[in-house]
């Protein structure tokens, strides 16, 4: 499905429309709609109101059920599109005075301008994300070309056409194509039309983007990340229980999900005692939360049984689909997911040394320690490359937060100066 200037076309029209695209882009760039920002805010707000009135329930509820998200949380997430939150986002990311930057050196006027054209290469792991990426691009005033992820449910086109329906002036700022990533030449053509390419997805997608972009195209990478918890001996059972809840509720699938725990010790006995303590807490929490998916538990049981046969880890504890595996290295790695955690020793003096090699992949660290240890440890983690130091809930979200350590609107804008 193609969305071109507010109209929906079949994929067979792809080449014809892409041939026409450069001319249409140039026209919009030469005759910019100065009210784009207000239109986006207005359209977003109308959609938010429609969402809280149940206007999207037909598509939203099946998705919420599939991913086990509560309706309440959906309403909270929908608020991201409200006028109030969109304005707040702009002022946090671009500064309170972003619409009225004070002049420099007496007379030089400054303002934020859009990059121009953004090409969004979306990933398929979160359904609403492609549309949200476009909304961010619009907020900065850009024309947006979206490449749908393979297996897109049709939600992106639906949301974006709805956005256009609210404010028809946005039509020439939104283009959606369903180009397979394997059509390299088409991807390259679209990338070359853009000033910036926004790439969601793993390293494969990031490498592909580097191959298709000229050096004069900005790449804005939203890559995959790994997160973990760091605990010191002063950690309380209550903190560990909250971490266990986070692990059960996210199933360790998000970039911000805790994959394992680094424990501040260099003594294996202490490490093992800690692992046993956390296992009991995780087990109890799992029991209250309800078991994970059976096919996933099966996969992990086979994996853990194999680990036991290989006999390389000092301790493997498992029950009812949850497990704790003590490992001797200090490598940051993916867990088996679905409530299976690794535990490794990492003395606080070694934090930077051991974590630094993971540069670019580090996201959140749930820091579980006493208040007086907090600042020093946070400093070390930041030095190693982490971008979010949270408490027990690594996946907390709130409006105005940075994305992987940067503000998207800044990435999608440039500052222009006029003497």
């Amino acid at each position, binding site marked *: 499905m193609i969305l071109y200037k507010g109209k929906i076309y079949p994929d067979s029209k792809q080449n014809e429309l892409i041939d026409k695209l450069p001319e249409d882009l140039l026209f919009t760039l030469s005759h910019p709609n100065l009210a784009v920002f207000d239109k986006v805010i207005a359209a977003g707000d109308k959609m938010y109101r429609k969402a809280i009135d149940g206007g999207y329930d037909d598509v939203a509820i099946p998705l919420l059920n599939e991913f086990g998200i509560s309706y309440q949380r959906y309403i909270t997430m929908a608020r991201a599109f409200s006028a109030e939150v969109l304005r707040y986002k702009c002022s946090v990311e671009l500064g309170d005075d972003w619409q009225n930057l004070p002049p420099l050196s007496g007379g030089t006027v400054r303002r934020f301008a859009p990059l121009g054209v953004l090409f969004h290469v979306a990933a398929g792991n979160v359904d609403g994300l492609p549309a949200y990426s476009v909304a961010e691009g619009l907020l900065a005033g850009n024309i947006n070309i979206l490449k749908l992820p393979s297996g897109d449910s049709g939600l992106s086109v639906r949301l974006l056409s709805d956005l256009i329906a609210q404010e028809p002036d946005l039509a020439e700022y939104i283009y959606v194509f369903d180009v397979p990533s394997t059509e390299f030449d088409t991807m390259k053509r679209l990338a070359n039309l853009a000033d910036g390419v926004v790439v969601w997805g793993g390293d494969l997608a990031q490498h592909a983007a580097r191959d298709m972009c000229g050096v004069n195209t900005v790449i804005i990478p939203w890559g995959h990340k790994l997160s973990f918890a760091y605990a010191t001996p002063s950690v309380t059972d209550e903190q560990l229980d909250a971490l266990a809840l986070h692990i059960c509720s996210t199933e360790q699938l998000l970039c911000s999900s805790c994959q394992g725990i680094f424990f501040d010790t260099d003594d294996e006995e202490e490490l093992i005692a800690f692992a046993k303590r956390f296992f009991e807490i995780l087990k109890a929490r799992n029991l209250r939360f309800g078991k994970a998916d059976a096919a996933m538990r099966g996969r992990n049981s086979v*994996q853990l049984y194999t680990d036991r046969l290989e006999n390389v880890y000092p301790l493997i504890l498992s029950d009812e689909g949850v497990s704790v595996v003590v490992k001797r290295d200090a490598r940051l790695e993916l867990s088996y997911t679905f409530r299976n955690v690794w535990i490794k020793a990492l003395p606080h003096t070694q934090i930077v040394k051991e974590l630094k090699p993971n540069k670019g992949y580090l996201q959140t660290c749930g820091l579980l320690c006493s208040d007086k240890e907090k600042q020093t440890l946070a400093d070390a983690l930041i030095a190693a490359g982490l971008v979010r130091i949270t408490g027990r809930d690594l996946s907390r979200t709130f409006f105005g937060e940075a994305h992987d350590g940067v503000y998207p609107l800044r990435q999608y804008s440039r500052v222009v100066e006029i003497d």
Partner: protein
Amino acid sequence: MTKRTAFSFFSVYYKPTRIALYRFKPMSNVNKLFSTRKIYDLKKSDALFVKAMRDNCRYQYGHCPAYKEFLDRFRFQPDDIRTFDDLQRLPFLPTLYLKKHRMLSMSERRLPLKVTSSGTGGNKSFVGFNLRSIWNAFKMVCRVAKYHNLWSARLTRYVVFGYRPRRDNSLGASKSAWGFTFFAPAASRIYALDYKDGGYKLDLDNIKNKLVKYSKGRLPVRTMGFPAYTYFLLRQMKEEGLSVKLPKGSLICLGGGWKQFYAEKIGKQEFYDLAFEVLGVDDKHIIEFFGAVEHPILYTDCREHHFHLPAYSRVIIRDVDTLLPVPDGVPGLVNLLTPLFDSAPMLSILTDDIGVLHSDPCSCGETSPYLEILGRVGVKDVVTCAQGAEEILKDFLRTDDDTL
């Protein structure tokens, strides 16, 4: 005390000087099992199966030090296998483990047939057949084919949805598909994956054209391949409005499992309906096989499309958490048992499949329970952002995962 005795008995018994003895005596139960005539009469073969498993276990224990160590760790001795229930306690090896650690009980030089699985992520299972295992497997295939009326004297056109065999292709799927083309004399053989210009290329258009051509002829056609490939072709033909009727006696044979379908949730009935619509073959002429490289027993579906267990193997379904056996009718991990292999200790393997064993009566008349594969472990196949990062970290940092 008894265990201790058994242990010392083996260490003496398997001294190299005595090896000649086992070749004639203890393994003969395995030969007998694979000569069973009533292939779905499990009650009659139960006792023999247990003896054959014990013999095989003894042999592996004596000839594969890693397997000996494995059983010792579980404090299990081959002679502990006395009744069928003891087989539930026999420690099992996961295919995941076998992919990473090659275990052999005889020199590779004694294995004229070597096969690998189509493993993902660089890890492949390797299995080797010595002459005796080949002979036993051959007897099994002959008997199963006879029971299911696969033998035919009529010239047949074969369409294989798989690789054209080559000497350097040791894939089990390729070898078994090739073997399949000998049940009836071949008038021709065509392959969906042909070797051209130094690589395999998929050519479904050729297959499509040939099927249309064959439908106008008289010779029966037999197709063989993954359900997914076959389904893909059928759907394509339907979209193009192609509908033919293959000559009488044609068969659609499926093998390799429905694993590609679990995500799409395509029902078997939908497949049968499509095959009838596009190729004019009814579901009585659609036959499905099931087997694994690590467990090359030929499971063939009955006319009700059930995989009854043959005399050569048994299946234990295990709880996804505890790995303990579950009652019939309860889904769990599929544990496959057979004494077929001499070359490696693969007598009880734990697969990545989730299945259920049904013991209710089947209208085909066979009393043997039947296995239904429900899916593969870990298939919810959620695309996660954390997993993507791991892929690259693995390349970036040295890992000790891949020993193969």
